[in-house]
């Protein structure tokens, strides 16, 4: 099971945090800080896996990937495959890239809500839901379309629409 998805920048500021087991907000901050200190102390050109038993409790692994100014971090347990998780990050980032056209940190900051939608379409309750980024985008677009239509409807006052009818 995937325990957490965290995106943070290279200065340790969280950009997206999602814990699939509830963590108290204070605990979340502490986890992010410890994670950051682990990540920024890792040299370049080493493996992307870190054992984080001491941070997340027994049977926790972490895989991270460093893109430009961001760290993408997945925490998971032994029911998942390390390399597959690494590729799941790839799926996530690929999807972001397609959604935002050359994604950068700012897209992530400003589209906080959409980011969550994307993550929810890839990981569901701690399990991998979809790994095809085209499928993910299709699902996300369906949602945005629905949301957009629901809000445009609102622009027409109720009285007017009833009058038209």
């Amino acid at each position, binding site marked *: 099971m995937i325990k957490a998805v965290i995106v943070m920048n290279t200065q340790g500021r969280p950009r997206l945090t999602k814990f699939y087991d509830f963590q108290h907000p204070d605990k979340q901050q502490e986890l992010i800080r410890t994670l950051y200190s682990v990540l920024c102390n890792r040299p370049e050109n080493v493996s992307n896996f870190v054992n984080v038993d001491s941070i997340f409790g027994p049977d926790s692994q972490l895989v991270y990937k460093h893109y430009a100014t961001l760290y993408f971090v997945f925490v998971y347990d032994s029911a998942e495959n390390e390399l*597959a998780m690494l590729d799941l990050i790839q799926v996530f980032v690929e999807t972001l890239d397609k959604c935002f056209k*050359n994604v950068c940190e700012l897209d992530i900051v*400003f*589209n906080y809500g959409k980011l969550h939608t994307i993550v929810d379409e890839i990981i569901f309750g701690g399990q991998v839901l979809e790994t095809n980024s085209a499928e993910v985008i299709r699902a996300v677009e369906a949602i945005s379309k629905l949301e957009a239509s629901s809000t445009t409807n609102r622009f027409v006052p109720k009285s007017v629409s009833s009058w038209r009818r």
Partner: protein
Amino acid sequence: MIMNTIDIRIKYLHIYLILRSKKQLSTNRSHITSQQLLLLPPSISPSFLLRSSSHLQFPSLSLSPHRAKLEQLKTIGRELAMGSQGGFGQSKEFLDLVKSIGEARSRAEEDRIVLHEIETLKRRITEPDIPKRKMKEFIIRLVYVEMLGHDASFGYIHAVKMTHDDNILLKRTGYLAVTLFLNDDHDLIILIVNTIQKDLKSDNYLVVCAALNAVCRLINEETIPAVLPQVVDLLNHPKEAVKKKAVMALHRFYQQSPSSVSHLVSNFRKKLSDNDPSVMGAALCPLYDLITIDGNSYKDLVGSFVSILKQVAERRLPKSYDYHQMPAPFIQIKLLKIMALLGSGDKHASEQMYTVLGDLIRKSDSSSNIGNAVLYESVCCASAIHPNTKLLEAAADAISKLLKSDSHNLKYMGIDALGRLIKLSPDVAEQHQLAVIDCLEDPDDSLKRKTFELLYKMTKSSNVEVIVDRMIEYMISINDNHYKTEIASRCVELAEQFAPSNQWFIQTMNKVFEHAGDLVNIKVVHNLMRLIAEGFGEEDDTADGQLRLSAVESYLRIIGEPKLPSTFLQVICWVLGEYGTAYGKYSASYITGKLCDVAEAYSTDDTVKAYALTALMKIYAFEKAAGRNVDMLPECQSLIEELSASHSTDLQQRAYELKAVTGLDSQAVESILPFDASCEDIEVDKSLSFLNGYVQQSLENGAQPYISDNQYSGMPSISNFRSQTHHEPSTHGLRFEAYELPKPVEQPKPTLVSPMPSTELIPVPEPSYSREFQPAAAVRPLADAGSNEIKLRLDGVQKKWGKPSYSSTPSTSNSASQNVVNGASQHDGTGNVSSKPRDTSYSYKKQPEEIDPEKQKLAASLFGGPSKAQKRPSSTSHKSTKASSHTIEKSQETKSVAEMTPPPPPPDLLDFGAPDDTGSSSIIDPFTQLEGLDAGPGALSANNSSNISSTKESDLMSLFGDTPMSPQSGFVDTLSTTDDDLIFGSSNATSKNGHAEQSQGSKGPNLKEALQKDALVRQMGVTPTSQNPNLFKDLFG
């Protein structure tokens, strides 16, 4: 459209800014970033871009000011382009917030900004008639604020209110916020449950999905029943996405509270044959969990899993399931993990898997990351199931491919896989010795730790010195206490198991204690003390003496060093007290002086002081008993005076006792504190017979006699009291079940003996219940022993229905049961190990010239040394008998040790077929046992030749296609009904084989359990000596 153009414009402005900044920065990264953005059209760039960027090199720390500047530039760029339009659907306020936080120079400034934001939100969110869009933004801002670590609890209720909204945008935002804000036992959840119920029934599948998402995160054990029916209905929803999510939500319920959905687990089986492969994929996750807990109930699915995997690997799934030209790799991985669980220790199930595993390993695509993931998983599966020589060879080749790769990730996986394979074929490591050593010296910490794990698994007496030295060296170099503890306990364990000499053992322990003393388990400490006290041989007193003397010498050397860990000091004090003056090398005044120094230097540590004081008492007692005059050092006297007035009553008592002992005559002292008697048994007269005279006298004088407990039936007996208090917490937690208590009493046996229904996941034999309900009079005579018996008998029964065990050869099971009857002996276990032809093919390969000779030396010491390795076992088999006799003689002591671990079950009438291996496995080191049994056909000793031929046969069978598979392929009733369906059509699951499950159910001793136990023991940090013949056998000689 307008948004898009703005977006593009921003991008280009962005690029422009970066290009400009590049001139100032001229760093590697900004260069690539601009290239990424300029040269590659987005449509084709992603994967390439991402891959290239992951290989970038830039010094991470020195760049940070530049990086900040770059980020700032980017922000400004965006800002300029967006103007006041508030792009991305966000308002200018949010933009400002993000920007100002980004520009904050310090943590305090950031906090100030965020607090200000919270104030604004608090004010505005309660205003009446906020436009819905605005409200959404407030909630998003709230989530953002909480992510930054500030309290946003004032807004939770607004998020909850939002989930009630009809507008899908608001509803989704509301759900998002509550899933991030609320714990599943938060008070507000109750307000959402109703909405969730309604939304789960919605016509709009996107609403349903949003609700399912919330369900996963917000529903707990109590609220599961409220939404369960709706979720179950959704399992048959026409939309694939909904079905998939419903399966996963059900899985989540199962994780949260297995009992509440136990009647629904059959759904997971059904979904395995769903028309939609992705739904099938989703069902694999819960099945994996279920099989982890109880593999036996799912043995019938082996055939289905194999055929699914085969079809996936043969690209029978639609193209849309491909990922990087790999057909549904995530499904493959899950299937392989499940097969590894099902095939472990089950020859019959494993045989069905050989063909498909062989194909997977052979055809694997090692150029892509995901291809290697599947390859690695296949190797793991091959080494988990019943071994097959061909498959293991292929796995070894695959591992060497991984290890030879340049990628650290693949090396990491390779080392991990090697660690799994090495149990089955110990000589695999030899081919890769240099790769392993490279990994050990790699700057990558993760890789290093993995490699230490591997070394730990391949330790034997010939290489233990090198490995433990390396481990200690690494242990000293790290700061991570968690890992330090782990590696320290591993060092101790290895040292205990394989120590080549006593001298080395003591020195190693000293090193470990010195550097990680406070981290190691306290049991290790006691173990060491006992080891020194008991000595290692029965008849050879001089060897024991030498050991003790060397211990004393080393401790006297170490004792002066500053800041020793408390636990280590306790050992030192105890050993000095017990053996400091023995053998006449050191004078009493010298030792007592040292002890006083310790007590003085660590005056804050009461335990150490207590140990020191008792040590002093012993030394004075020994002196006295030897008839020498005792001259107490002045510092000793002052210490004793000081401690007689100590706040700690324990210290006070010890001080007074010391005073009293020194006042006695030599004969009395000798009987109180005889020399070297720490291992002698102290007889305790539990019946207090020496008081009989006194009681008799009192009775004659007219005192009331005591009422015996048997007659005391009106009141609960003491033992009952104990069992009740013992049960208080558990009954408290499971209050509803209190009414079901009488059930097991009425028919205790049928419920225990009858086979468990497959839907029932966790057998719940509660021995204590029946105990509680027996009349007190019946319980009393049994007391503690009785309770043990009841419990153990249940264990035996449960095992019959429990996990299957590994080898079913009658010889082992016979000897195993004999073991139990004999009590403590374990000849066959050790005999097995020693008779195993170890490393017959050991030949140290000559390495190419250019390799560092030092590395070569290390490699030789780790992997080579065949002569030593062969010598060891032969001597151990000889000694092992001694070890066992030793154990019997000292049964009194071992009993005290055994109290820490579950006591071995007594032979039981109920326990017929199933050999009781808990007893033997706790005595024999499971890994050595595994090696002996498991080492593959090649390594099995001659008396098991029948075994070899059978494996060979199976080998051949697996080679000649899958014909033998079909009769065994399990039946899924639903599979056969949906036979004509596109994907699973060819699964030849028509022939039902109901006996398969049962016949597999009662096979041989339980390997998995033994491994689990071993893991537990390792976790605890120590294998008690009496349980560990290896320690004896290695330390004997």
